[in-house]
């Protein structure tokens, strides 16, 4: 599955990294502790978080995540958006809470690590 399909499922807004919406997704991860994400998430995972801080992009780039979903209508900081564009990390915004997002993704066959 590629990121574009998730965008359609969630009807998410793509606020950065549009060039990479054809990234493949290997699985999903949800956490708001970035230290934990760095140690547990795997390459090409799609990550669901409530963080809006620019460090989420650095973590995503470091691991090679396919995309980051910011849930619950949280608005990212402007540095986060510009960094995600520079690093070519798709940044998806949704009004859905984390639990709903995970449920929808799981229903589409995306499982945890």
């Amino acid at each position, binding site marked *: 599955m590629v990121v574009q399909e998730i965008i359609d499922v969630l009807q998410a807004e793509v606020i950065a990294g549009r060039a990479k919406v054809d990234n493949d997704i290997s699985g999903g991860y949800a956490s*708001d*502790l*970035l*230290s*934990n*994400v*760095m140690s547990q998430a795997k390459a090409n995972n799609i990550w669901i978080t409530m*963080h*809006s*801080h*620019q*460090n989420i992009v*650095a*973590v995503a780039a470091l691991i090679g995540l396919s995309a980051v979903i910011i849930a619950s209508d949280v608005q990212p*900081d402007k*540095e986060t958006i510009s960094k995600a564009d520079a690093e070519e990390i798709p940044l998806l915004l949704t009004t859905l809470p984390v639990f709903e997002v995970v449920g929808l993704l799981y229903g589409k066959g995306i499982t945890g690590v």
Partner: protein
Amino acid sequence: MIRPFVADLHVHSLLSPCAEVEMTPRNIVRHAAENGIDIVAITDHNACDNVTAALEAAKGTNVTILPGMEVETKEEVHIIVLFEKMRQLKVWEQFVNQHMSGRLNDEKRFGAQFVVDAKDEFIRIKPEMLLTSLSSGLAEVCTKVSELGGICIASHVDRPANSLIAQLGFIPPDVELAAVEVSRLTSPREATIRFPAIGKLPIVTSSDAHTMGDFLSGPKMVFYIEAPILSEIQQALKGQNLRKVVVQ
């Protein structure tokens, strides 16, 4: 003349809902004086209503109170902010009040938030919920504190909760910190190995006391400085002008 000052830069008073009522400003000053603790920063969660009482209680003693606060940023990162003067902290307090959640404290679940005077007399209960994040992010907090002449120290970066390194993975490039603090669970030497994210920042340690037992048994630092003031502490953290800090 440079001489040693024993310091604890992270102490909660009974204003913090999680602190014991024995942590009155007067009692903290008294125990500091009796135990050779020369510099104490009063750092309650997102508030500073008991600092004036501590400054007053310390008058005529050998204890210096540094005005401070433990701020919780939007990212749920805890940051110790310290100022030279109470009037700087009061300006900072206005910024904090503008970025509060608007929720009220639930005493039964979190504990009461007492404001007292220098003689331990009850003044009032602070109603706002202090044990929660402000709406201002880490970078904005650090920039604002710096503009007001204060310094920021990342609290207990070795702990799993509310630590800059746990929450954000590493120290963002746009954040100006004077130091990082490790809790009593980790020695500074261990910290540099376990948390490479600390980089070249100075490592300090404090008691993070919520009880008098914590305050007396918790880790302290010794600053080799000319006077117990923030500008001297800043030089010691940077290792400037023969000033230094020795972490126990």
